[in-house]
């Protein structure tokens, strides 16, 4: 049987979308989802599942779509994934399930384009569930209803763990240090990729299940873990995230208008700086914006920057500068494609060496060296090697550094009994996700460093089970 072409997902045209923060990908309608689902070979040995960090029964939910059993498909997804509408939008499927799909060419860093669009199907089913108020079955266990659990952090891990525990009838209080919940889904991922109504819907569902949410609260400084236990919490989950931005460590990096991607995105996404002056938080928009990095955060920052230029009548000039080439970029292929369609420039094989400022210490140019690819490094990707004599300068009046994040240490620093590794990440028992403190569990980016939303949720789900087992022993 000839493999049909994949169904292209509907999107807002590049010129229309790059001037606002509305969602770019419109998703599949029913007919499109059915056509795409019908392409699935329904392999006897569905290797795609091995590519999913939470082990969703991909074969089954796609089959259920072909049978128009969308409710069944939704419940199949929900067995493993609490937020299919979110993951269907942000999962890097081409590095996960789609890469494992039998239709993908082997030995390539990401999946071939003809593999099944599992993520778009997941999104279709997730959105169907949301629209039709479907929900996973509540499994209230009377033995658990007397327990209170504190969840620290309301990002992907915290949201997932809270949902899992509340579903079992446990009373959950979720603490968040910012004034809004959602963690990176709110301050990091822009609304054109993760619409806020979807996030709000998921958070509202948690509230309906009885989860208490306390924003503006710093667990650690305002209340220690011991004090939480003393107040009657029987277990604590830490979903603290990887919050601390890395910088390049090159001269001139503290000049004005050099942002970490976290700062730039937080100003725009969380603090609505794009609505300045109606919103009071400012952000400076340059004529020549350079984003350094090749991950999803770099793509998000560049696409936000480009939109701000366009919305403010500035000739769009936003460039992503990356040390390697496009193939090595860790970003989702879709984001790279979207950024390019919208008009973001790409300058590959560039090593930033120095930022130079004007008399008021505002950045005005970036000194760089051209690179070529050498031997593979520890990450398996070919290492960028600077070419002698290839130094050059580029105009740059706003620079955004998107080269990774480190562990959030707000809590770990004031909790010496919590064992961390050399990166500041919390050390856990991989099966139960329990930390060095009995009754304290952790998951998400605070365990093992920066990962994906779905990996964070996978860990949170395991931790929720660890917590349930811990409570039942009491």
């Amino acid at each position, binding site marked *: 049987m000839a493999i049909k072409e994949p169904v292209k997902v509907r999107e807002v045209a590049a010129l229309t979308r790059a001037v606002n923060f509305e969602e770019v990908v419109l998703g599949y309608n029913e007919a499109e989802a059915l056509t795409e689902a019908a392409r699935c070979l329904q392999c006897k040995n569905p290797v795609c599942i091995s590519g999913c960090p939470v082990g969703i029964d991909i074969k089954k939910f796609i089959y259920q779509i072909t049978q128009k059993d969308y409710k069944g498909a939704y419940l199949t997804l929900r067995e493993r994934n609490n937020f299919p509408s979110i993951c269907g939008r942000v999962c890097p499927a081409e590095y996960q399930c789609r890469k494992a799909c039998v239709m993908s060419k082997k030995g390539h860093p990401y999946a071939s384009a003809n593999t099944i669009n599992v993520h778009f199907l997941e999104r279709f089913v997730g959105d169907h569930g949301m629209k039709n108020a479907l929900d996973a079955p509540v499994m209230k266990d009377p033995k658990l209803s007397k327990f209170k659990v504190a969840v620290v952090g309301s990002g992907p891990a915290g949201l997932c763990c809270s949902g899992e525990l509340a579903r079992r009838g446990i009373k959950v209080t979720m603490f968040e*240090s*910012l004034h809004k919940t959602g963690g990176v889904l709110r*301050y990091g991922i822009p609304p054109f990729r993760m619409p806020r109504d979807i996030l709000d819907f998921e958070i509202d569902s948690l509230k309906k299940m009885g989860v208490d949410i306390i924003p503006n609260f*710093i667990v650690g400084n305002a209340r220690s873990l011991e004090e939480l236990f003393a107040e009657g919490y029987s277990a604590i989950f830490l979903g603290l995230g990887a919050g601390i931005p890395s910088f390049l460590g090159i001269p001139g990096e503290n000049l004005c208008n050099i942002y*970490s991607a976290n700062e730039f995105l937080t100003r725009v996404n969380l603090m609505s700086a794009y609505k300045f002056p109606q919103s009071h938080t400012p952000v400076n928009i340059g004529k020549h914006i350079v984003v350094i990095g090749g991950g999803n955060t770099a793509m998000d920052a560049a696409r936000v920057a480009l939109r701000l230029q366009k919305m403010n009548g500035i000739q769009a000039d936003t460039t992503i500068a990356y040390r390697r080439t496009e193939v090595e970029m860790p970003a989702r292929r879709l984001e790279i494609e979207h950024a390019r369609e919208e008009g973001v420039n790409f300058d590959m094989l560039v090593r930033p060496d120095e930022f130079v400022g004007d008399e008021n210490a505002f950045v005005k140019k970036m000194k760089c060296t051209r690179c070529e690819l050498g031997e593979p490094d520890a990450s398996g990707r070919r290492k960028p090697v600077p070419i002698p004599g290839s130094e050059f300068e580029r105009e740059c009046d706003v620079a955004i550094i998107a080269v990774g994040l480190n562990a959030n240490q707000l809590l770990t620093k004031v909790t010496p009994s919590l064992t961390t590794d050399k990166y500041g990440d919390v050390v856990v028992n991989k099966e139960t996700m329990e930390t060095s403190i009995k009754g304290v569990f952790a998951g998400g980016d605070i365990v093992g460093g920066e990962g994906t939303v779905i990996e964070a949720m996978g860990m949170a789900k395991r931790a929720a089970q660890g917590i349930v087992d811990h409570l039942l022993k009491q």
Partner: protein
Amino acid sequence: MKILNKQVLGNAKDAGIVRIEVAAPDIAKKAKPGQFVALMVSEQGERIPLTIVERDPKKGTITLIFQVAGLTTKLLSKASVGDELFAIVGPLGHATDIKKYGKVIIIGGGVGIAEIYPVTKAMKDAENNVTTILGTRTKVILFLEKELKAASNELYVTTDDGSYGRKGFVTDVLDELLKKDKYDLVYAVGPIPMMKRVAQVTKPHGTKTLVSLNAIMVDATGMCGCCRVDVGGKVKFSCVDGPEFDAHLVDWEGLTKRNRVYIDKEQHICKLNQL
């Protein structure tokens, strides 16, 4: 997050000093001298850091003192008793390392006087001999003089225009004190030029000097790096690594310039809001 008390402490034409007492029981329980909160006046508001000046754990309140400068402090100064702040979070930052140093000079300039108050009390309680120097531009914006006098062994006041105390700068007094006697610690909070000058004056004497920096912050929990400052050649985040640093290691020029990054936008938004 309700404002329970409000008092105008000093009022010059262009520089009001306002004290508010805010209900924040969790912060009141834990705040230590040197720590701060981040607050938002409204949902559209900016997050700004303010030092916790006093706390009353029984009442569940904290006291903040601010100078009316930008849009957020202007809006905050217009809030009334009974109004709720949209958000307040803390305590943030490292607390001051309070212990017995011996002879300590504590300097407060302008609204920095508010920030040295809890530190001065704690240093005195830790059996230090505390000499306090307060400096403002002019008499009407001087505040907490009586309270700080009670918390110090000795107190000096300077005003730029000579309208009260000695005419001149805090560093004039500091220089004389250091020339006469040996001190174990100088602690200073105030405008950047003042703190920079303090560092210059104490350096030749080799006196350990701490300053509390007022960098621009967003989340104030270490997530954005907006408040980064070069300290001894290393990038430090004022919010989580500070706010206190060794004054002799701070890149004052860099900090001064970074703090001016939004000056045009600030003027624009204040004008738009007719403030």
